[in-house]
């Protein structure tokens, strides 16, 4: 097997999402990988500092996920209790060792710029279209059958200046690839499809470049995120191509709307009325904003001085361990304050 072997078991990147100091909720990790975005998941994802991995394995099957965990447990690398997982000291060593033998993600900060899988598909399809175009071939089977994808690339193609489009696209790719290591540049280009070039699958490319398959899967995503980040603030054909897929913030669509109204000075109650949504929903939206954009979030607007003092009195020490004391169960306001306070403290903690 090509995977990293430790004590006879296959250790995957999952081990890098676990901690020896912090017990982590199994389902939170799974939901993050799956992109199941409840506020609870996002909150704990933030606490575990694994938010960049949000939606990175949408096809993940629970059986596979659970099997990977059981393997770690069976090998004495992790312990599970009350649906939470904690690395043992052997597990902590295995985690350190893992990083010695496997690639580290380089472009984590770009992971939430949009759906990276879609970026990949779009750039590959555009590359194919341009390659065939450069050979003046019109008869070929497109890489994607998705109607939206075909339309998007077609539209992009029509809006570009054809006279030096191929040259520019190639130039832009070259510029980005030159910032990468040789192996990574090769790996990315091997995936491209075009005129009489079928391209390499991830497994085939990994084998050619002697990269373990589990690394290849990670590196693939990492490099496409890297490409996205590289072109996000440039101008030119590549930027135009991916721009429609770029999300200004990682917020969900509905949260985005709430956030815009909030920025325009609407109160929570006004937003509820304007959007015909429940108070609890709007509060969840605001919590999502606080989680993803803590730097911009006006915590003081909600946590007035007396509220803040009260919270400071009640909740100290490790944020993970705080137990919410329900004083009003009626409308969830104090839980909202509690959660905001947790997020604020976490932000201050990480900012240090």
């Amino acid at each position, binding site marked *: 097997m090509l995977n990293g072997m430790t004590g006879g078991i296959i250790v995957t990147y999952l081990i890098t999402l676990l901690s020896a100091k912090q017990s982590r909720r199994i389902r939170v990790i799974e939901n993050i990988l799956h992109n199941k975005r409840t506020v609870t998941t996002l909150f704990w994802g933030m606490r575990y500092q694994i938010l960049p991995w949000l939606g990175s394995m949408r096809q993940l099957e629970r059986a596979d996920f659970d099997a990977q965990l059981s393997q770690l447990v069976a090998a004495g690398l992790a312990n599970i209790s009350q649906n939470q997982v904690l690395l043992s000291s052997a597990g902590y060593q295995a985690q350190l060792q893992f990083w010695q033998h496997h690639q580290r993600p380089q472009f984590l900060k770009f992971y939430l710029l949009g759906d990276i899988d879609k970026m990949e598909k779009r750039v590959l399809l555009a590359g194919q279209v341009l390659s065939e175009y450069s050979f003046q071939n019109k008869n070929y089977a497109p890489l994607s059958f998705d109607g939206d994808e075909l339309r998007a690339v077609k539209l992009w193609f029509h809006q570009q200046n054809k006279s030096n489009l191929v040259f520019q696209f190639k130039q832009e790719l070259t510029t980005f690839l030159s910032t990468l290591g040789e192996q990574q540049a090769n790996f990315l*280009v091997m995936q491209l499809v075009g005129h009489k070039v079928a391209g390499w*699958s991830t497994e085939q490319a990994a084998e050619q470049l002697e990269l373990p398959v589990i690394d290849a899967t990670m590196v693939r995503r990492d490099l496409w995120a890297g490409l996205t980040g590289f072109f996000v603030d440039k101008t030119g054909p590549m930027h135009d191509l991916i721009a429609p897929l770029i999300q200004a913030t990682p917020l969900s669509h509905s949260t985005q709307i709430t956030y815009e109204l909030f920025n325009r000075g609407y109160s929570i109650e006004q937003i509820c009325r304007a959007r015909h949504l429940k108070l609890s929903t709007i509060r969840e939206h605001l919590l999502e904003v606080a989680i993803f954009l803590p730097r911009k979030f006006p915590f003081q607007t909600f946590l007035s001085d007396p509220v803040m003092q009260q919270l400071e009195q009640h909740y100290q020490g490790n944020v993970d361990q705080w137990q919410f004391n329900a004083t009003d169960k009626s409308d969830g306001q104090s839980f909202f304050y509690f959660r905001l306070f947790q997020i604020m403290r976490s932000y201050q903690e990480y900012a240090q």
Partner: protein
Amino acid sequence: MLSEQQLTKFLQQKFGYESFRPGQLDVVTAVMNGQNTLAVLPTGAGKTLLYQLPAYLMNGSVVIVSPLLSLMQDQVARLRSNGEKSVTMLSSLQSVSQRQATLAHLSQFRFIFASPEILAQQNVSDALQRISVSLFVVDEAHCVSQWGPNFRPHYLMLKGLIQHLGKPTTLMLTATATKRVQRDILDKLGLDKQSVKSAVRSVNRENIFMAVKKLRTSEAKNQELLELVTQLTGPGIIYFSSRKQATQIAGWLQEQTGLAVAAYHAGIDQTARYKIQHQFMQNKLQIICATSAFGMGIDKDDIRFVIHYHLCANLENYVQEIGRAGRDGNQSIAILLYCDGDERIPQRLNQLTIPSPQVVIDFVSGRVTVDQLGESGELLSFYVSAGWNAERINQSFIERKQQEKEQLNAMLQYIMSEHCRRNLVLAYFDETTMQHDDGCCDGEQTEWSAATLGLQRENEAYIVPPKGQFNWLQQLDSLFFENS
């Protein structure tokens, strides 16, 4: 009505073929005359032309029902690459808004591809009812009659849909079907046997030598496989019934032989499937280790061997899968590897989809839910929604079990026979038998080797490129041609 001459002229102009292949003209003429037609033509006989040509000469849209997403994608891609723009595919890949947009403009499309599951949706069948359907095509029509792991209950709803659409001319296409299956297809689609035109061509493919190797253990089987692929010239396909084994053996063979081998199955992501399929077409891959997901719609006529690592559940599937070899008419070979007990795999797969009588009773009375049963739950809820009671459902399961058993037995007879295998197949499909000779099969104690068949590997092509030679700058140059 157009004459044969006019049709041939159109064929030349529109499709660039000199003349019709055997069987094609008959079917095209019948379809253009509005006659329901059942075409049983071997793979490679040019089945898609049978609806593509009439589509351009008739008013309205052609609806093509297809069992596999990959098959539909392939046909859509090919139509598009021939410059056809008015083609769409109703599939699970579409988002709700995409689907709605397509349905709103349905009459604009000359070709509408859809799975039976999608067609069962009310908004889809209503949208189809509003447009003019010139031809209703059921591709891989044996699925209508099929049971076991491949059974798709929604095929049984096509009968109602054909009525709903005002009985458009219906064309059923399949590569293999016994007389019984042919009757069953017409029956299930509610078509009158008397008025249906049937165009049946022999399943016999004389250029494919048929052989079976019986092995004692799976190690011996792997060893035999290794020897075969070392001796035989490619390209070739090896079929497996498990994805996992397809992947494992692909890796092992590549390691052992240095040949370019890849796995292909539904568990591989779409982009990778595209790449592997095209590598194979471009002769960059020598061998594909596949599950039955690979092959339908593969347009490669120089496949020299098809090896089955596992037996098929029936001869229909087997004949169809080996039919992917030698479409160019040159010598090819089909080899089936068998270990005692291999038949337990299709048996188990069949059992999985058939719930026990008690489960059926519990389901009908609501004590068990769809979710608890998985795949067979969908099947049961389909029957219940059609108004069947537990007794009737169980009776149909008993009949199906019996039928599967008979089909598997025929497959085993093929494997165990010491006589002519080709004649056994011909007899199974109610065809006239023929004279066995040395180029026919390994029955009747016929000795054979890759050399005697002229299938010995000679070239050293298809070898995995040596590591460390890839250069991304060079690759960009070969991808993007600059004429300056």
